[in-house]
């Protein structure tokens, strides 16, 4: 009898510990994990500042949402074949690949393409488990949500949150190198999506959105340079190529104070600071071509 009570208590205590840590952000599930040699960081950097910058980068859904709100039809030709990541053998490639697939999953989610989502979920699960962040990716739940069009909002929220939790966990557990690769993968694939759309269907909106990515690249590149190793050197080299074509983009600023209005019962803040993008169609074409080249090189890295 006493033995039974004791076992019950252990089970209760274990459950309580797990439950109480359910929302502990990145502090839970501390795992021993060894990165490949070469993926070490510069010792002279402010890791908190670096993590703040990495965490600020856009959600894997945002570029897709912008494309969809422009009423651009869905096209599977923009997407990576998810099976390509099966050949990725290092943490470096897997983290970058996880970023690519997360951006494509965002695109599929926004366009409610549930029939195509499962293949991406399968590969994301596999990579996330290899990177020891699989505990934040509830494959069974996401798969169940993906089997019905009625659950698309839940699927988008849950899968975007999974990405956010994996990224937070990596940063909070001294694996910022992988987090930086994750956001780089998302950013490159998102840039690829918008540039491919602009190639097929030019608009001033797309041109502005692409030109503004110069600001993001100028923040991302110094972060990537903080990490050492052959793979990072190649990555930085590719991103420098991209920077060279973005250097033609001119961004000027107008200063203004924000206005707050009530529109249809909602509080709306209109920013009057303004950035103005200047770039020729030829320069845009150069960015489109270089982005495609770099993205394909990174997939094959």
């Amino acid at each position, binding site marked *: 009898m006493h033995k039974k*009570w004791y076992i019950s*208590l252990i089970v209760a205590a274990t459950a309580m510990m797990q439950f109480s840590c359910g929302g502990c952000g990145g502090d839970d599930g501390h795992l021993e994990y060894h990165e490949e040699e070469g993926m070490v960081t510069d010792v002279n950097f402010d890791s908190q500042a670096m993590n703040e910058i990495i965490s*600020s980068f856009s959600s894997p859904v945002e570029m897709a*949402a912008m494309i969809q709100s422009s009423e651009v039809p869905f096209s599977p030709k923009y997407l990576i074949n998810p099976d390509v990541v099966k050949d990725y053998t290092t943490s470096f490639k897997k983290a970058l690949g996880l970023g690519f697939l997360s951006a494509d999953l965002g695109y599929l989610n926004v366009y409610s393409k549930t029939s195509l989502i499962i293949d991406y979920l399968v590969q994301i699960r596999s990579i996330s488990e290899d990177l020891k962040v699989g505990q934040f990716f509830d494959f069974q739940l996401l798969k169940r949500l993906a089997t019905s069009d009625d659950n698309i909002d839940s699927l*988008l929220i849950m899968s975007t*949150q999974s990405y956010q939790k994996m990224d937070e966990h990596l940063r909070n557990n001294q694996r910022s190198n992988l987090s930086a690769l994750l956001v780089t993968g998302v950013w490159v694939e998102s840039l690829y999506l918008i540039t491919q759309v602009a190639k097929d269907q030019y608009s001033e909106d797309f041109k502005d959105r692409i030109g503004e990515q110069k600001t993001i690249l100028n923040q991302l590149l110094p972060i990537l340079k903080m990490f050492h190793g052959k793979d990072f050197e190649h990555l930085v080299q590719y991103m420098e190529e991209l920077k060279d074509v973005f250097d033609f983009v001119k961004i000027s600023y107008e200063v203004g104070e924000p206005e707050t209005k009530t529109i249809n019962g909602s509080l709306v*803040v209109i*920013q009057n600071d303004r950035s103005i993008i200047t770039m020729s169609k030829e320069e845009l074409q150069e960015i489109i071509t270089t982005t495609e080249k770099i993205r394909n090189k990174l997939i094959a890295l």
Partner: protein
Amino acid sequence: MRRLFIILVFAILCFGQATTADAQCKQQLVYQCATQTEKAIFLRDFNTKLKRESPSDETGMKFTVVLNKGTQYRFSLCAPDGYQEQVVLTLYDSAHPENSNPLGTTFNKADKTDAKSFDFICQKTAMYYVSIRFKPGMGDKKGCAVGILSFVGKSK
């Protein structure tokens, strides 16, 4: 043995309370908050621990976020029952400081009214800050709050 059992149960309950009180909000609240925004696409959440040891303490957390030109975003704030009136979400940047002249906030200091959300029409791609904190003079207990960033649409 019975005494040992009681002590163990008590210890487990204390442990549970201590960790949850000092933790971020539960997933259920995050999900509820994310789904209450109609016609907007969820982008990310800002799950925040709130704790004030003394009246002068700065509570809550600050997050960085890149917002893109030509986009209308929505910032929503949710908190567990009893905390809704005590917390504030603020959007700011280096030119519009959090405490003096922020870009947007859920709490209007002038008329002391709260909004569950506000939209922000971004005209400059840059890094911004989002803070979630107890209002001045409030928050005598530990708590949590959740901010949600959503994509409302393109804007010119």
